[in-house]
């Protein structure tokens, strides 16, 4: 029994190392193609773009979100901003009404139906060649759109371009942990972009050719992750998704562990259920690395974390059993023992070294992700928050997502 568990353990460790090496090799292959542009530039021509902002009770951030869109370095007559109030009950309605006089802003009000319904309303009214959404809690960098559009100009086969999403103004340790995670996310997204295997076209400012929706249909609920479902659908139809690493969008992130837990529960549940919906894409040669790398990688990550968590719980249980046994047998004895470190008792099993290798690759991805977004190399102390928070809390949202998927319980949007 123990040897079977050990085989499973080492198999999962092997696959986890494989995933990290795969990313690293992809980086080495493509490192010269990663360009970070500074300053302004011009396009040969400026296609029309509609950016839709679905809004539900976002009174705190919506003003700044709209201002950031108005500041985009893109001809005003080539860009339309659709503000879709999805049945807000706070001050959102009053705030967005202040922008009614702008000629390139159009305001819609509708009954609450969820983000994907708001985006679909915008799609029904757009006449532009390109379409994108922007979450109402995110702010765009003024050069982001033009940089995204330059990708479309360069390669006519690209059907969607995702930006680099970074954390806006982190204030506490939970947000700092996410900031580090987003650095890592940018690195992984860039590498998946090189592989043509991106699985999410994030809500903040992914721009699509309108043709995508004409050909494949509008947004679907997608288990409350419509931005993931559309990416899966595009991959299934072999529509190319690119990542523009120097198009920056800053997003507000959950401020507490509870809010983070709920957000991630929705994301992971969305990944699991979209993967189940598109299971016929798995391990099919014609779907490329999306089929052989991205989806299996997600499944391996979930399986590894769940298994490791089980192992840790077992060890903790055994430790407690010994302590209880000790308490029952010899009672409670407090002895002030001096602890001397003895290398002999340190764990030198092979998996410890493999974990060190995995950490090396993870730290590299964080550092390089930071380099892509801030232009700086190095490791800051704030990055250290990431490891304890995500190691301790992530297993819970993963396990709950597995539970919800098995028992078909859909998590709330918020």
């Amino acid at each position, binding site marked *: 029994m123990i040897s079977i568990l050990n085989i499973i353990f080492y198999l999962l460790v*092997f696959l986890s*190392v*494989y995933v990290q*090496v*795969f990313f690293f*090799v*992809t980086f080495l*292959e493509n490192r010269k193609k990663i360009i970070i542009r500074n300053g302004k530039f011009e396009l040969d021509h400026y296609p029309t773009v509609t950016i839709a902002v679905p809004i539900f009770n976002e009174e705190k951030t919506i003003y700044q979100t709209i201002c950031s869109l108005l500041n985009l370095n893109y001809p005003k007559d080539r860009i339309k901003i659709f503000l879709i109030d999805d049945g807000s009950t706070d001050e959102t309605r009053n705030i967005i009404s202040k922008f009614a006089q702008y000629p390139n802003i159009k305001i819609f009000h509708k009954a609450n139906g969820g983000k994907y319904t708001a985006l679909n309303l915008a799609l029904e009214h757009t006449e532009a060649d390109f379409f994108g959404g922007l979450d109402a809690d995110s702010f765009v960098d003024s050069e982001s759109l033009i940089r995204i559009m330059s990708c479309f100009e360069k390669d006519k086969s690209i059907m969607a371009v995702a930006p680099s999403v970074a954390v806006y103004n982190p204030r506490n340790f939970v947000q700092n942990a996410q900031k580090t995670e987003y650095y890592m996310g940018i690195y992984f997204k860039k590498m998946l972009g090189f592989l043509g295997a991106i699985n999410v076209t994030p809500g903040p400012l992914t721009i699509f050719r309108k043709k995508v929706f004409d050909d494949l249909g509008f947004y679907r609920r997608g288990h409350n992750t419509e931005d993931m479902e559309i990416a899966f659908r595009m991959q299934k139809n072999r529509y190319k998704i690119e990542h523009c690493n120097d198009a920056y969008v800053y997003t507000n992130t959950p401020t507490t562990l509870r809010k983070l837990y709920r957000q991630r529960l929705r994301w992971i549940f969305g990944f699991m259920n979209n993967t189940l919906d598109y299971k016929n894409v798995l391990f099919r*040669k*014609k779907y*490329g*690395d999306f089929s*052989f790398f991205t989806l299996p990688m997600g499944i391996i990550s979930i399986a590894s974390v769940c298994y490791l968590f089980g192992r840790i719980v077992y060890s903790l249980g055994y430790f407690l059993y010994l302590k209880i*046994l*000790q308490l*029952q*047998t*010899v*009672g409670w*004895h407090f*002895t002030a023992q001096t602890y001397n470190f003895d290398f*002999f*008792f340190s*764990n*030198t*099993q*092979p*998996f*410890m*070294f*493999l974990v060190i*290798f995995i950490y090396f690759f993870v730290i590299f991805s964080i550092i390089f992700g930071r380099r892509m977004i801030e232009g700086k190399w190095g490791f800051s102390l704030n990055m250290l928050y990431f490891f304890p928070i995500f190691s301790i809390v992530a297993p819970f949202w993963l396990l709950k997502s597995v539970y919800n998927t098995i028992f078909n319980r859909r998590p709330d949007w918020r």
Partner: protein
Amino acid sequence: MIDWKKYLIVFLITVGLFLTASYLSNYFGNKKINQLKLIQDKIAIDILSSETQFSLLSELSCKNVSGSVLSGELDELGRKLDWSQNNLGATDEVSYLKKYYSLLQIKDYLLMKKVSASCGEKFAFILYFYTTKENCSLCEKEGLVLTNLRNKYPELRVYSFDYSIDLSAVKAMLAIYKIKDTELPALVLDDKLLTGFYSLEDLELYIKESFKLQEKKLETRPLVKPAQ
């Protein structure tokens, strides 16, 4: 569309990392085994030296003998061997070292009994027999009791033996004290066999008696003059 060559290269790199990890693990595992061997050799020399010294000078050398043997090294070695068995696996080398350790314990026991009898040192001895072959929860509990007692009474010397060890000296002890595998854990205290689990309180009582017994013996024993 799919770069299979890349998948293969990544596979080979991953295998390479696995081999490196197992090489490093082996390297450090061997270092630990060597450390155990060094400790055992040192203890063997200490015991042999004490035995020789004791034989040469008899009771006159009581002070010197007790000072050299009563180190905690045998306990440390026991702890490290236990850890090795659990973490490095029951390899041939670890089993060999365990046999050697059992032998050293027997030698230490015999010597310390002599020292105790001749030099008036107050010691209590417990021979503890357990098994690792099957799940013995009572052995686990008895081990905790003995560890606790040893911390409480520095003069108490506990020698623990794995029932299933393939060593003739241990088998001889099992035969002498008529210990059966169905009666584990088993304790030998002052040549008396106790089988099954004994609680902290019960065992403490026995040890206290054992102390008194030795003190009584020492009072009645005439002092042996050293050979002229």
